[in-house]
């Protein structure tokens, strides 16, 4: 048995090195990827782990973004408490909306999540006094990160680089927490709900309670990613809660692989990098994306990570069987 490669650590180091080695543009793209990776990973708690398809995940992204932006802009609240408030507000709304959604199943569940998300969007779009209506809330202030310039190695950096490092740290913590959650007994119960909800009920699982809890946790992390995105984007807009925004993490998750913990993050990376590359050649980016998705769904339904994992598994047992199952062992079984 070869030792496991610490992929997570390697990827983290690579991500950390972006502002040191790359250009300002690279840092910009990396920030986008890291924030949307969290958005997609939060959705995967529902899609990949609990087996719930949500078409309205943008609602919690938007609620987190507006909450954090309003606090920082109107009340000049500090960054971290505002961020946390964004996550908690999103989770609170997820609890309320989820209470109704988990009473329905399958496509009805999905449609109701979409309906709630459209309500959130409509409120953001029309409640001019608070949300700025169609114009949104521009000029959301950057967090006060001047102190980072006094740290060794970081003095030459711009505010955007500082913010990227803060985002990376926050998202890394969120990923660690999510990983812990899916590995916990709670996470195991979610996977048995996904696998067979009828049987899960008859080992003592209160379906609705667990689905609601998963919904709220997913809402919390979507809220955090929305809050970060609002600051990164220097403004929040009703689009954040629009249904096309709900499709983004779905596409990322399916592209990356819903069955794998890191699938959605890989999907976020792939979608954003492809977007950057393809838009520089052609304006028909959505067309290219559509073709890629169709090919993927038919040829690699397990997504990028799922396909790579299957390939790795196919290579590994071959070496293993060559060393373990010698001719004498085969003889004894025959």
């Amino acid at each position, binding site marked *: 048995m070869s030792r496991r490669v610490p992929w997570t650590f390697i990827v983290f180091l690579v991500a950390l090195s972006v502002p040191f080695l790359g250009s300002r543009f690279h840092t910009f793209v990396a920030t986008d990827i890291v924030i949307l990776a969290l958005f997609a990973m939060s959705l995967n708690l529902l899609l990949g782990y609990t087996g719930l398809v949500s078409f309205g995940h943008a609602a919690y992204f938007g609620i987190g973004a507006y909450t954090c932006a309003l606090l920082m802009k109107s009340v000049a609240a500090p960054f971290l408490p505002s961020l946390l408030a964004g996550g908690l507000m999103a989770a609170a709304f997820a609890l309320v909306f989820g209470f109704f959604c988990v009473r329905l199943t399958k496509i009805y569940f999905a449609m109701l999540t979409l309906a709630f998300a459209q309500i959130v969007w409509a409120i953001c779009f029309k409640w001019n006094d608070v949300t700025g209506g169609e114009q949104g809330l521009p000029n959301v202030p950057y967090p006060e990160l001047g102190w980072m310039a006094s740290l060794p190695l970081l003095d030459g950096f711009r505010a955007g680089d500082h913010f990227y490092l803060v985002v990376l740290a926050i998202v890394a913590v969120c990923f660690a927490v999510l990983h*812990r*959650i899916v*590995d*916990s*007994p*709670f*996470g*195991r*119960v979610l*996977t*048995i709900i*996904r*696998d*067979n909800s*009828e*049987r*899960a*009920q*008859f*080992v*003592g*699982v*209160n*379906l609705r309670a*667990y689905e609601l809890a998963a919904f709220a946790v997913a809402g919390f992390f979507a809220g955090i990613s929305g809050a970060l995105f609002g600051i990164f984007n220097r403004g929040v807009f009703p689009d954040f809660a629009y249904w096309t925004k709900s499709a983004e993490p779905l596409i990322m998750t399916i592209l990356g692989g819903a069955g794998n913990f890191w699938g959605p993050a890989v999907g976020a990376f792939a979608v954003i990098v492809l977007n950057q590359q393809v838009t520089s050649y052609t304006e028909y980016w959505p067309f290219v994306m559509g073709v890629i998705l169709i090919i993927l769904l038919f040829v690699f339904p397990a997504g990028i990570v799922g396909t790579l994992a299957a390939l790795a598994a196919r290579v590994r047992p071959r070496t293993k069987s060559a060393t373990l199952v010698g001719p004498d062992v085969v003889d004894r079984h025959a």
Partner: protein
Amino acid sequence: MLEVRGLSKSFNGFTAVDRVSLSVKRGEIAAMIGPNGAGKSTLFNLITGHLQPDEGQILLEGRDITGAPPHRICKMGMGRSFQRTNIFPKLTVFENVQAAFISNRGRGRNFWARSADLYRAETNALLGSLGLRDQAEVTAGELSHGARKQVELGIALACDPEILLLDEPTAGMSAAETHETIRLLETVAAERRLTLLFTEHDMEVVFSIAQRIGVLHQGRLIAEGKPEVVQRDPNVRRVYLGERR
């Protein structure tokens, strides 16, 4: 142990279960037989809370459980297996049984512990007694039909039931597998002092282990009692035993 009083259920005017009353004593092995469509599965789904009865009452050790949700009934000491094998196909055999331990003992609320090491000893012991030890790391959905039935039994037993309802435990099994499964059920029931209520189409199985038999026909309980009595009942002979062969 289990008492059912005047239970009825109809679907769009079709009466699937019609005023059925029965009682199962602690430690008893009881069978429910009847032709296809007689209402056996519906009766089981009513007792286990998957369906709500239109009328009647279900008592588990004297406590009224009529209309309670399945997860609560399960925690009150009732286990069940399903007619179509009902397991967690993408998890390993070990995880299937371990998950049942985790949820039944209320550990699922824990967001922070590591699930991998929970109930390891209990799970391995149970897998051992079911003869699934060697397949512990196999993905459950890839097992043979017979082995999947064993996994399902493992899931049911992990909930530490006092009464176990088995819907066709040997459906789709070969003669040898059937024999083995019935042996296993008998041993397990004796070891754990389990009360068993099962449905079965194989008459040989029924008459070999059941201490009491109820016969359902068109939703109604037409006979009930010791195997010898049921076997001699003219009604049963007419609608059921005669019809089978």
